[in-house]
């Protein structure tokens, strides 16, 4: 504070009074990224992530060595794991964005500038999203490795990665929103984990419990292959060379009409990703009407879907509801992957965006200064 070099007051310093939206967002973004890039925590997390994904990948490669569709299953596995770990990491990167600054005493310093709460939240969200996308980028070696094994088409791969990125963005938005609402970083991180668990596990539990609500007594027609009574000997063993035949049976029973409650699963991040990916069911070999020695249709489809594709199939089955009239022709068809009827992921993504949007809007109101109300126990500075 030497007197010789006073800040030159007569000279107007302020050349522009306005602060454009994107330059404010860019400033907050670079402020956040600089801190992240200069800290150690993020690099440690990236390192652990790489090791874990690599370990799982190598392990899976060993186990799946003999399976056909190896590339597809491995790709699906990596996507599933990146999503699972992403859901675990994104709240950690985002849910202390605002209240961490409050605890550090830097939030109020930003709030007295021309920065608006919307710009602050946008910048923080972008920074945490980019931070979590780095984890996706780091998984790329394994994704490309799986792709190199074949069995996955380009569209499937691109949509998978895109949806992973979108889901990470949604979780980061939820985290930033919660961090603007909650006073303490620990509380907001835990709350964000709870919200993510609600989406990823809660939806499945609610769906499972709700099946009891949609039970209906229906007459069901089911078909199955069995050996004819005449070909069985006294011990119940079929004669060699006996042919299986299709038997159609009608029964009364309670069945869950899952088509009414399938939407409950929509907001699940795994469902959103799995449902959006166009798995190539058309490429599978056509069914041979003739049956093989075991009585099953020849020519496949002995197709093993990966984890995400299984989720996709499960959701489609839930959407279709139980088949109350299953003929022998349909029985063979039922072994094929279900085609997509109504995409459910736009609904799910919509619900997730609604949740994130509401949280961010309330957070924005909370950050608007001058403050009328303050949460109990908070200090502005």
């Amino acid at each position, binding site marked *: *504070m030497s007197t010789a070099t006073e*800040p030159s007051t007569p000279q107007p310093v302020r050349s522009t009074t306005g*602060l454009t939206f994107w330059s404010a967002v860019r400033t907050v973004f670079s402020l956040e990224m600089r801190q992240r890039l200069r800290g150690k925590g993020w690099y440690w997390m990236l390192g652990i992530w790489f090791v874990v994904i690599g370990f799982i990948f190598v392990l899976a490669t060993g186990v799946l060595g003999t399976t056909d569709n190896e590339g597809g299953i491995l790709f699906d596995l990596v996507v599933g794991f990146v999503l699972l770990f992403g859901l675990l990491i994104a709240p950690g990167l985002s849910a202390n964005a605002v209240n961490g600054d409050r605890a550090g005493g830097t*939030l109020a310093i930003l709030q007295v500038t021309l920065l608006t709460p919307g710009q602050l939240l946008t910048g923080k969200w972008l920074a945490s999203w980019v931070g979590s996308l780095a984890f996706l980028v780091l998984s790329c070696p394994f994704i490309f490795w799986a792709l190199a094994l074949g069995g996955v088409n380009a569209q499937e791969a691109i949509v998978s990665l895109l949806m992973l990125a979108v889901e990470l963005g949604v979780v980061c938005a939820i985290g930033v929103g919660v961090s603007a609402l909650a006073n303490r970083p620990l509380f907001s991180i835990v709350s964000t984990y709870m919200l993510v668990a609600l989406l990823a596990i809660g939806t499945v539990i609610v769906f499972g419990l709700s099946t009891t609500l949609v039970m209906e007594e229906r007459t069901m027609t089911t078909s199955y292959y069995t050996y004819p009574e005449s070909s069985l000997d006294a011990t119940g063993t079929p004669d060699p060379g006996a042919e299986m035949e299709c038997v159609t049976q009608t029964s009364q029973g309670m069945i869950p009409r899952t088509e009414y409650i399938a939407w409950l699963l929509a907001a699940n991040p795994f469902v959103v990703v799995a449902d959006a990916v166009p798995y190539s069911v058309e490429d599978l070999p056509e069914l041979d009407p003739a049956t093989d020695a075991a009585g099953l249709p020849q020519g496949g489809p002995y197709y093993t879907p990966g984890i995400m594709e299984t989720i996709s199939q499960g959701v489609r089955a839930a959407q279709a509801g139980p088949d109350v009239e299953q003929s022998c022709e349909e029985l063979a068809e039922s072994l094929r992957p279900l085609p997509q009827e109504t995409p459910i992921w736009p609904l799910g993504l919509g619900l997730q965006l609604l949740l994130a949007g509401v949280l961010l809007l309330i957070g924005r109101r909370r950050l608007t*200064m001058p403050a009328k109300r303050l949460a109990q126990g908070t200090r502005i500075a």
Partner: protein
Amino acid sequence: MTNERGGIVVEGVARSFGSVQAVRDIDFEAPPGEVTALIGPNGSGKTTLMLMMASLLAPDRGTVRVAGFDPVTQPAQVRSRVGWMPDTLGVWESLTALEVLTTIGALYGMGAADRSRRAEELLVAVNLTEFGRRPARVLSRGQQQRLSLARALIHDPEVLLLDEPASGLDPGSRVELRSLLRSLAAGGKTVVVSSHVLSELDEIADRAVFVSRGQSVKSQTLDEAGSQMRRYYVQAEPMSALAAALQSYGVRYETRGDSRREEFLVQLGSTAEASWLLRTLVLGDVVVTAFAPAGGALEETYMSLDTDRR
């Protein structure tokens, strides 16, 4: 003095947090070109008032005008004209001092060239040039305090709100702070300083507003404060001679209890009275070894407002 275009005028503001009434009724005025001190005990509502003037907190009642604008309805106008230095030190630890300043400059809408020139200039002004390119975590408390001051000045604000700016500063930095604030006031800025270091404020401030229990209890200029009744302490060798002399002139005195040295405190109405007493004592052959005001002018006012020192 204060008009629609500059300075701060606060009238009858109140603000409570839940059941705690932090500010009950404060009137406050800070004209441009002067340094106004905001003085009060801990928890008297100083920081709350600062937050209301900095457009971070809305008053429940009353009006606030900062540089002619209302912080509640025109926050952007106020923010572009106010530099605020909080009493808490918020530091982005991994950022360099220069980056902290340019980032805040950018958030005030300053151009890239503008803000880096201004940042370099301010680092010189607060004596932090050698730390410009080092992360802020290596700064000591006093250095962070100086960085915080530079940050508040980055957009060349008309109004400067400083909450406890001198705390943590070494004596040298205090002197520099004092001359910096005086020169800002001389340049026409409105400067508000809250502090407990009353002897510091004596030399910096032109006027003072005293708050206590959320109320403004007194407002005076330093000239007024200087001409009021104040206490002097007197020492002599031996003290018994001094006691006898004071008794013979009819001057009431008490023995100062809060000091290590033995000395008497006398209450005198003006500087003329003080010089009369000193002259009389010396001419009366009392060996006076010390004769000085017991505290600064503001401290006298502060102590006389014994409204709530619990």
